[in-house]
Structure formats: C-alpha cells, structure tokens
C-alpha cells in the first residue's frame, strides 16, 4: 500500500509572532520556519506503517513557495521515499490545497492519506476533511490511533467528550492529533541521503486548479494584551482578593 502524506511549511511553534505595522498580515521576514508539528506526526505515522510492513511506499507532498522544499527534504530525511512540490507563491487556502491534493490522490492512488489536523499558522482544521469530501473517501480526523486491518482501517479519534473509534474502508483520509505518536528526529546520514531522493516540482496550473480564494484578509491585529497582575503572599490573601477585589467567589 502506498501512503500519501501532506506537509506544510509554517512558522516554528516556538517563535513569538509579530503583526506588521500596517496590519496587513503577520510579519514572517527572517522568522524561523519549520514543518507544522501535526504534519511531523503524519510523516512519522506513515513511516512507522512502512517499517511495520503495512505500507510499501511513502510519498510526501506540499503546496507552497520554493522554500517549502526544505520541509519536503525533512520528510524525506524522516523516511519518505519521494516528494511532490506543488509550487505557488500565492496564499493557498484549505480549499485550494484540498483540490490540489485531490488531483494528486487521483494520480497516485494511495491506500491511505495522512495529514495534520490543523496548521499552527491559520489554525483552520479543514484540509483533510475537504480532501475527503472532494475525493469521496471516508475520513478519520483527530486520530490518536490508526490500525490498518486488511481492507479497512480503525481510527481512534480525540473528540470533545473522550475517545471515539470508527472503522473506515480503504482508501481513507486520516488527520493526526497530538497523541498519535512522538515524531523522531532526522539523523545526519538520513538528511544527506534525503538530498538524493526524487522530488518532483509541479504547479497548480499543471493540475488545472485555481488557487485564488473568495476570502479576503482585510486586516490582522494583535489581540488585547492581558496585563500581568499582582503576586499574593498567601492563600488567605488570594481568597481575600478573589472575594473582595475580583468578586468571583
């Protein structure tokens, strides 16, 4: 079985973001970028399925600017066999990405597609579900466990009230939650080897997909800053403040 795994280049999760002075967007100049953490979990799961003999090939795909090839190389270093870069400098939103991925699914015919549940930049949590709808394949979102069993896969999902397990026919779309696995770090020899692995470059036009969206970003602002308060010296003082100052007790 072939596994397709989608990755996204985003701001590193440790970086404190700044809003541009003209409020047009978040300032990403000279900011450390990395693979979206949920995508790392997706790559790890795909590689583990290959190591277990469930999968035979892992193909990584991304939609983004030329620099996003760094994240594809990371995926290759972590164990993906080859990569597809759909290059665009436009802001590709979830729907456009899902349309492009649907074309790749059509071409590659994977048995399983694994994506992160959300990217930590736009926090949309949409692409996997949209891809499932467009391809007509079943979806298992927010996965904390993925068990392939013959021609179906059982996915345990993190839902608001606890955990839910569903069975999906294959091929299927899975999106990862935090507890699915702990991604490994790429080793130096693997990083070197990754440079020689095949990486195809395509454009949205090659797939006949229009990236433009009908949603316009009007402005971006910093949220109201919360002012730090005071330190209290004792439990008695805390209770007094909560009762008489904050009036929440």
């Amino acid at each position, binding site marked *: 079985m072939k596994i397709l795994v989608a990755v996204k280049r985003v701001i590193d999760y440790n970086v404190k973001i700044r809003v541009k002075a003209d409020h047009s967007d978040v300032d990403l100049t000279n900011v450390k970028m990395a693979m979206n953490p949920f995508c790392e979990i997706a790559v790890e799961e795909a590689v583990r399925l290959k190591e277990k003999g469930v999968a035979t090939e892992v193909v990584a795909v991304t939609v983004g600017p030329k620099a996003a090839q760094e994240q594809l190389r990371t995926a290759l270093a972590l164990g993906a066999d080859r990569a597809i870069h759909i290059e665009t400098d436009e802001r590709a939103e979830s*729907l456009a990405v899902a349309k492009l991925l649907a074309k790749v699914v059509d071409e590659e015919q994977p048995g399983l597609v694994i994506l992160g549940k959300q990217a930590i930049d736009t*926090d949309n949590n949409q692409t996997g579900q*949209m891809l499932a*709808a467009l391809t007509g394949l079943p979806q298992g979102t927010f996965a904390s466990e993925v068990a392939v069993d013959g021609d179906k896969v059982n996915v345990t999902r993190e839902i608001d009230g606890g955990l839910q397990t569903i069975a999906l026919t294959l091929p*299927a779309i899975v999106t990862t939650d935090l507890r699915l696995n702990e991604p490994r770090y790429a080793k130096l020899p693997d990083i070197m080897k990754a440079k020689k692995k095949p990486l195809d470059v395509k454009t949205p036009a090659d797939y006949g997909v229009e990236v433009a969206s009908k*949603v*316009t970003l009007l402005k971006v602002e910093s949220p109201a800053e919360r002012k730090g308060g005071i330190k*209290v010296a004792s439990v008695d003082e805390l209770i007094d403040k909560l009762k008489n100052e904050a009036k929440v007790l």
Partner: protein
Amino acid sequence: MSILVLADLHEGQLAGATAHVVAAAQAIGGEIDILVAGEGVQAAADAAAKLDGVNKVRVADNAAYAHQLAEPMGALLVELAGDYTHVLASASTTGKNVLPRLAALKDVSQLSDVIGVESADTFLRPIYAGNAIATVKSDDVLKVITIRTTGFDAVGTSGSAAVEAVDFVADNAQSSFVKQELAQSDRPELGGAKVVISGGRGMGNGENFKLLDGIADKLGAAIGASRAAVDAGFVPNDMQVGQTGKIVAPELYIAVGISGAIQHLAGMKDSKVIVAINKDDEAPIFQVADYGLVGDLFEILPELESKL
C-alpha cells in the same frame, strides 16, 4: 439572509454550545433555523426549539446520523444548504469534523473559529494560536462558519419554534461506529463552566489531580489540564485546554503547576480572572495572571481547599 445552525449534541442531548452559535447567528441577522441530526434526538430538538430567536428546528432523526459520522452528516448538510446563505456550527470536534465537507462540496471556503461578527460577510477569527486576530471578508455565495463559543454569550430559552422532520437519509457504506469511551463526570462541562481549575506537569502524576477535586467541588468548577499533563498520561485528552484542545473563558481560571506555554494561553487567556499557582516565580503564566501565588502546590492546594 437565512442561517442554518447545526446543533451540537452530547450523548443525544442538546449541548450548551448551540445557544452560543445561535447568538452568533443573531449577530449576522436574518432567519435562523436549527438542524438537529442524530438517532433518538427528539428531546434535543424540543430543547433547541426553546432557544430564543429560532425560526424553526429541522430534525433528521435516523440511524444514519447516529454518532454524527462525518460522511452522512456532510451529505445531509449539502442536501439542506441550498435554502441558506450561512451555515454555522460550533467549533467542537463535531463541527470541525463535518463542516469542511459541506464547504468543499459547495466549492466555498470555510471560516473557522469565528469570535466576532462585523457584518453578514465580515468576521473576526484568531490565527497563530490567538496571537493575532484576522478580519476576513467572504465573497462566497454560501458562508460556512464554525463559531468559537467563548466569543458569544448564549441566547435565552424562552422561545417556542416549530419542529419539523427532515426525510433525507444519507447512504454511507464507508464509515461505521465501533465504540467510544466518554469521560463520566458530575462536574460542569469544561467549555461552559464558570470556574475552571487546571493542572499541569507540576502536578507530578495523575493521582495528584485528586488534589484539585475538593476545590472543584467547593467552587462548582470543571477540571482541565495542560497539554504537558495529557501527554504525560496524567489525565485523558478531553481535559486539555489550549490551542488544539478546548478553548475556555470562565469567570475564574485557576492554573496549577502550569508554566504557561503560548499553546496553553491560547486556550484560556480570555478568562475574566486568572489565578496562577506555581513554584517557579519566572513562569510565563504569571505574565497573564491577575493573581499569582508562588509556592509548593502540594502545600497550597490543601490549604486553599480547607479555607474556601
């Protein structure tokens, strides 16, 4: 304008989130219908009919919608969406699971986690874990939106909308329910609780979370946790507060043994009053806390419980 709100259910009953989504729909303006879909959901439909400002409740009560699996739910929404300009759901795991399918099949974008309504086509939503707020305008013919419930006060329950059945039954041979393990608790639901007390890595282990129980009992609080505590296996995932867990905005939030990573702050910094208890006086949580108490939580918690 005409708006369809997908009702949130919890074990077949109407969940509190729905009243917040209806409030968001009122901010947009226009006629508001609610869709209640599931199996054995007549009581939930009756409860939805009491929400203020609702025109009618449409009920799809069929085994096909049991457990609200994504594929049949998506098909049902596509079937009904033609009657509406906006389709809204809460940004719960159900709303997030189902709504993007509707958007994709209608070839429109989705706006996720909306916290403010400027007009019928312009909305506010947090990005980058809430460290920036984007104002976005949608020119799509159908607006598909998930609502962050903390952004809107719940509507009242003095309504009496009509309830009508939806006959459409979606086919689904692709996905099936196997089992679920839902946390059983007598405490208020995290998303709607007036007081939340959360534990972090500093709690040390799952057993020590019992130290929060007595305080939660006295305050009528829900108990939450940081990602670190969930990852460490102290407590189950449904207790996680943060960017990718639950977003809460109670009157009082008490963070115990939580350092305050930005991903955690994203889930609670809109709380009215924040209390932090931590032994590290440099912990970032103190920068957002109204009242900070530096010290050993194993001494502070029993004292707090006894004095409340």
